[in-house]
């Protein structure tokens, strides 16, 4: 019994799926919270996932990029429905979706991600949810499972999704977003002044306790560290990708 293990091929695949889940954009139900965080706090470290909006504007190395192959198609439906898309062009690996709630209800994508719309969402920007799903071989349609009578519209388009490589500056330091490949030397961040740049991963780890955590041997040490740093804000510089030209600061622990 002690040696009984899962099929290692399956276990490895589950592990990969989990890693993919950690790095892919937040599920829709979290998206509003991420956006809200950006507005209220005004800064944040950019990971490979969850920052598609910032990435598409700014083009952070190491983030997912999508290329639209054909014009997206539009559908309007009520309740659960399957919409049939035009044939997928070659090399398509992703389908980009934008769902608009036209009446209150629950709307679920094929992978289980879901969004709830209340009366106050209808007609507001919060009624719009963008999402993307890996395209399956031979896929021709998209199904939305919706509350009975719930009215919705969907814009869907085939895309090719790739993760751009990190950049390397003149000093040989990598820069970009954290992603499934790990952490670059300089992590993309938005400074308190709104400028986008990079913080050194090591400085960030020192400031948020990750470095100290490597040496803790007991919860008591962790609690002591937390007590010493409680309520304190550590300010670290934000640089351009060269790692030397400072353009702002990033607050950790506020």
């Amino acid at each position: 019994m002690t040696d009984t293990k899962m099929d290692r091929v399956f276990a490895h695949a589950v592990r990969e799926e989990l890693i993919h889940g950690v790095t892919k954009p937040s599920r829709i139900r979290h998206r509003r919270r991420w956006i809200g965080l950006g507005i209220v706090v005004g800064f944040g470290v950019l990971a490979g996932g969850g920052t598609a909006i910032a990435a598409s504007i700014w083009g952070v190395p190491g983030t997912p990029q999508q290329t639209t192959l054909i014009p997206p198609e539009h559908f309007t439906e009520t309740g659960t429905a399957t919409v049939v898309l035009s044939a997928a062009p070659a090399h398509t690996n992703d389908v980009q979706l934008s769902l608009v709630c036209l009446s209150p209800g629950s709307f679920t994508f094929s992978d289980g991600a879901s969004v709830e719309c209340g009366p106050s969402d209808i007609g507001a920007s919060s009624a719009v949810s963008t999402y993307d799903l890996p395209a399956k071989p031979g896929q021709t349609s998209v199904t939305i499972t919706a509350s009975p009578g719930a009215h919705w519209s969907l814009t869907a388009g085939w895309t090719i999704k790739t993760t751009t490589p990190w950049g390397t500056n003149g000093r040989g330091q990598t820069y970009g977003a954290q992603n499934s490949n790990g952490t670059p030397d300089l992590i993309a961040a938005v400074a308190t002044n709104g400028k986008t740049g990079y913080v050194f991963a090591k400085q960030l780890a020192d400031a948020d306790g990750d470095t100290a955590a490597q040496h803790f041997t007991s919860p008591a040490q962790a609690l002591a560290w937390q007590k010493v740093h409680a309520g304190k804000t550590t300010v670290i510089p934000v640089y351009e990708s060269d790692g030397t030209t400072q353009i702002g600061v990033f607050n950790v622990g506020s």
Partner: protein
Amino acid sequence: MEDGWEELSDWSRALKRDPRAFARIFDRHEGRVFRHSLNLGASFHDAEDVTAASFFELWRRRDKVRIVEGSTLPWLLVTATNISLNSRRSLRRYRTVLDRLPRTTDIDENVRLGSSIDKNEDLYRSLKQLNPTDGSLLVLTAVDGVAINDAARLLGISDGAARVRLHRARKRLQNQLDRSGDTRPHAEGVGR
């Protein structure tokens, strides 16, 4: 749960979307969760699905996960129990991805079953008759060796309520197992 601090550190990193940290949590607990699922009477294949779904749930519900003694393991075990005892509905969310994941195809299912534990079908059937909280409480304490107060904290009930529930659940389970004629050692352990 002896490496609680290391896991707390990994959990903290995972919440910041560090994929390697989350993978380490999987590496640390996948065997235990899988064997727990087998103990509940699942087939080899089902136990794999339950284990995978438990970790998918760990990520999906990460904002609500309760850490006990510095570990996600008790939460995973409770989740695996709930999924196991209510598998059809709970696994539906992940059916597409589970069916897509590759498996070794040259291992005969009978070989798998032969290499795993004896089937606790009576125990499984009896557990399904219990209230989910009672079932989780019983499995956590009797099968997984989690202390009652830790199990109580995990399930959001008081120590006193946990002891009363556990006592009643053991009696109910033992009665059901007696009726089904099960006299195997695992049943005695649960029914004590």
